[in-house]
């Protein structure tokens, strides 16, 4: 959630807490924000389950906001996929089911004569929001830096491959990797600039990934002082040129963990790497997941079977950055819940061994 001044908010992606309450709505409600008027954009950077939980409810509440999603989801193959899977109602909490609910909201808007029934599609260098009047410190824009044209083609092929085939069994859809549909956002308001990395991964192809963004995307007001680290800080989403050329030195870096089976992101190496670029990094939670205690016979059965059931996600945490002066680089950082500094554990473990990444020069947008 981003306050862009003038009491207007952007909501980028969404998640739910352990009680299936939409975190963004609860937070905005606690601040006394009227989401029906003050939320001006609802953006889904991609359709993975962990990024769009509850986003349909956010959109339903944000009556004055268009819905923005990737250009890669524009083709009818995606709509047909959503229609086919939603009709069978296999799994109730998934990215596809959220998009089905978003589409229903957009249809309702059309039937009731609402202003914004049509989605905005994000593509590299397309502006999704702007404010060009008023005080200079409040003028701003939200630009998409991806998907690129090359990524579009790959994403559409991947989506077409997911469409069910006649006489084949039904199964829950698996998110394709790498994520070529992801929308990276560049937000500038006054002199404050933020780069929101979504789940975009760096690829070996020269027409997709972060290299394309660094080489060709328009990044007005660069460098950015706030960086949402992409893809949970994983190695395959790292492009050192991003840190060197479109971010300030020692930016504020925030990221979320990802845990699935024995895969935990960020790894210790990822933490070391991120902390070599900045000393100001925070993560919304650790990677440890809790186990819900059940009745004794169930617990004994689980123990006998040797099956460990854990919560799918780590405990919830929030990081809030608030500008303390009219300067691009002065922010207060507040941590809530399970949020914690990323680099403290690294400093403890690698005292004297950390070396700063050598900067190669800064690109001006």
């Amino acid at each position, binding site marked *: 959630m981003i306050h862009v001044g003038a009491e207007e908010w952007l909501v980028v992606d969404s998640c739910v807490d352990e009680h299936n309450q939409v975190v963004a709505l609860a937070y905005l409600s606690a601040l006394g924000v009227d989401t029906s008027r003050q939320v001006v954009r609802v953006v889904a950077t991609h359709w993975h389950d962990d990024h769009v939980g509850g986003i349909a409810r956010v959109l339903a509440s944000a009556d004055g906001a268009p819905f923005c999603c990737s250009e890669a989801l524009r083709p009818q193959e995606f709509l047909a996929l959503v229609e086919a899977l939603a009709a069978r109602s296999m799994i109730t909490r998934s990215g596809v089911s959220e998009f089905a609910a978003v589409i229903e909201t957009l249809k309702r808007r059309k039937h009731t004569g609402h202003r914004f029934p049509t989605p905005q599609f994000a593509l590299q260098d397309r502006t999704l929001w702007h404010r060009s009047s008023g005080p200079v410190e409040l003028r701003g824009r939200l630009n998409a830096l991806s998907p690129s044209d090359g990524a579009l083609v790959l994403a559409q092929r991947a989506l077409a491959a997911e469409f069910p085939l006649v006489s084949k069994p039904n199964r829950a859809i698996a998110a394709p990797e790498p994520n070529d549909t992801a929308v990276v956002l560049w937000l500038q308001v006054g002199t404050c600039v933020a780069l929101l990395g979504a789940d975009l991964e760096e690829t070996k192809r020269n027409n997709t990934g972060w290299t394309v963004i660094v080489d060709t995307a328009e990044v007005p007001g660069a460098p950015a002082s706030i960086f949402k680290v992409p893809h949970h800080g994983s190695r395959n989403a790292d492009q050192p040129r991003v840190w060197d050329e479109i971010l300030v030195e020692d930016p504020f870096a925030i990221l979320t963990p990802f845990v699935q*089976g024995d895969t935990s992101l960020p790894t210790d190496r990822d933490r070391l790497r991120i902390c070599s670029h900045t000393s100001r990094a925070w993560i919304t939670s650790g990677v440890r997941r809790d186990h819900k205690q059940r009745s004794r016979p169930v617990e004994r059965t689980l123990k006998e079977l040797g*099956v*460990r059931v854990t919560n799918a996600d780590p405990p919830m945490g929030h990081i809030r950055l608030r500008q303390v002066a009219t300067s691009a680089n002065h922010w207060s950082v507040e941590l809530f819940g399970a949020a914690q500094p990323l680099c403290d554990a690294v400093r403890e473990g690698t005292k004297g061994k950390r070396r700063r990444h050598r900067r190669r020069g800064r690109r001006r947008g």
Partner: protein
Amino acid sequence: MTPQALEITPTFDREGQRDATRSDTARRPSYRGGYVLPVVPNGEGHHIDTAPLDSEMIPEPLPLSQVRRMPTARERVVPPVLAPRDARDAHLFRRLQQWEGVVLRVGEDGSFLARLTDQTSSGDLEEAEFDSDDVPPADRDLLQPGAVFYWTIGYVDSAGGQRSRSSMLRFRRLPVWSAEELSAAIERAQSTAELIDWR
């Protein structure tokens, strides 16, 4: 052999009095719960009701025209197919916990990772790793990413009064996609695209 209705020799004399000197026990079917047509003609064409054997049903008397013949020595009575009471009540399952699962990935070592939704109480999302040996052999070919299953833990109470804890994995065998279903989805998508300009 076509099963035919059995007649039993009445234990009543012509006047409707029970004839204790005639014992038909040996000719009565020896199975429990069997059903018989209790009609036997007498010389004048009247019929005499008899009580059904071990049955709570009191059948209506049948006219003479519907009287069937007695089985011959070479024929056997085919009783109705009824499960014995013990087999019907052999096991009672008392569910303690159930999840709906989706397979996330299948490992080379035969294990598989699944995302679980608690269906017993909270609907919370959880995760667990299983051994493919835990999957019933009949369901093994369904084990692939995206497959949906139910995992249930509970008590099994046997007819003999024994109780044990049980864990069951059962994969959903969903109907395959039909051409009509997919065509309908594509049509709905086209209609949606036109309505909200998603194109």
